[in-house]
């Protein structure tokens, strides 16, 4: 479960950005501090990045930087959910979640029309897991419940959602930061999701609407 790392030098070569840009994006908090991983090498201390995440992030910054200012971009990448409130109608209209989850969202919320970003986020993540066929609807509801009760404590921080299954029994957990994870033998890692990535997706989804 180790993530692949890329050195700063390789990253700049691969993406064609300069030191100045990288440092400016770091300053503007477009690249989270925790992605700067320091390791000692034969030339002294070097900075490494989680390869997949940083490449995806830089691709996205390049793609969007002509349309949005750096500060707006920073707002979008921040793990702090925007103070957005959507109505059920809007969620349905924009197809943010599948019809089945929408139905369930309707049942859960009853008559209430407004849905906060954090609430929507949990439905959105569960919807993604359901769509990929990794979990059953019953498991989805458990994940959603866990999210509802624990996510508020982690708001504004980077966290990961982990779903494990052993002999047909599922457990899910929220993990602060991005540490290593070692599971017992026979346990299957069903999903490990980086929550801020979904926040970005969802923010994009909403702002594009």
């Amino acid at each position, binding site marked *: 479960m180790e993530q692949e790392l890329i050195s700063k030098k390789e990253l700049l070569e691969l993406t064609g950005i300069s030191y100045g840009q990288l*440092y400016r994006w770091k300053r503007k908090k477009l690249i989270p501090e925790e992605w700067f991983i320091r390791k000692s090498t034969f*030339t002294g201390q070097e900075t490494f990045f989680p390869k997949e995440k940083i490449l995806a992030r830089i691709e996205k910054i390049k793609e969007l930087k002509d349309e949005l200012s750096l500060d707006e971009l920073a707002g979008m990448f921040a793990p702090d959910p925007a103070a957005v409130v959507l109505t059920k109608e809007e969620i349905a209209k924009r197809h943010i979640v599948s019809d089945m989850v929408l139905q369930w969202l309707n049942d859960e919320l009853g008559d209430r029309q407004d849905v906060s970003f954090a609430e929507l986020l949990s439905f959105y993540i569960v919807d993604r897991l359901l769509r990929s066929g990794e979990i059953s609807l019953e498991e989805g509801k458990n994940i959603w419940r866990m999210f509802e009760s624990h996510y508020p404590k982690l708001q504004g921080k980077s966290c990961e959602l982990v779903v494990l299954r052993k002999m047909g029994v599922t457990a899910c957990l929220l993990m602060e930061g991005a540490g290593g994870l070692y599971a017992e033998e026979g346990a299957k890692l069903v999903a490990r999701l980086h929550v801020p990535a979904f926040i970005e997706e969802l923010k994009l989804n909403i702002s594009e609407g």
Partner: protein
Amino acid sequence: MERRDLVIAGTGHASGGLYNLVKLSGNGKLYGDIDCLELQVQGNAAVEGSVKANMVHIAGKGHVAGGMECEWMKVSGSVRIGEHVQCQEATVRGHGEVKGSWTAETVRVHGELTIGGDCSAERMEVEGHFTVGGLLNAGYIEVKLLGPSRAKEIGGETIVIKRQGSSLLKKWFFPAELTVDVIEGDSVHLEHTTAKMVRGNRVMIGPGCRIERVEYRDALECDEEAKIGTVEKG
């Protein structure tokens, strides 16, 4: 809550809270966090908490135990801040010390600057000497060295380190030199700098430099008096 003025002339102390203008002339002490529009210190002031203000003006000596958040900061004399500083524009003439990190748009220092953590700004101008415990990260960094300086890492777009002329006595005892582990920038101009690694697109290594390793992309210029280990074009 209504914002009122707080004026201490002579020796006195007050509690923190919400104020309009806080003016401390003489010897003033504030207990607790203060939130004001303007903080003026003439003399000696201590805040046993954090400061949030629009404008901070210290002539003399200021000590803040907590952090500071403001738009403008102007110091003539010395300021000591126990935690992090966040501001738009800061000018320090004299001595500035920040235990935590400093985030700003523009930082101008004439004199001495000590930062425990990282320092990030769009523009950073130092005339004097400085110590940064972590990363000094700015779009434009211009340093006129007047004394021994140190940083762990420096990164940015344009980095210019130059030496100012100083007296003979000072040259012997407090050599105006910068020591740093890594310098990375698009355009790097160095004088009297000791570094393990310098990386950049356009690099100019001036007199008095000792660099273990230089990596450059477009152009490299070296002074004859500079000592350079390995050079790599990447």
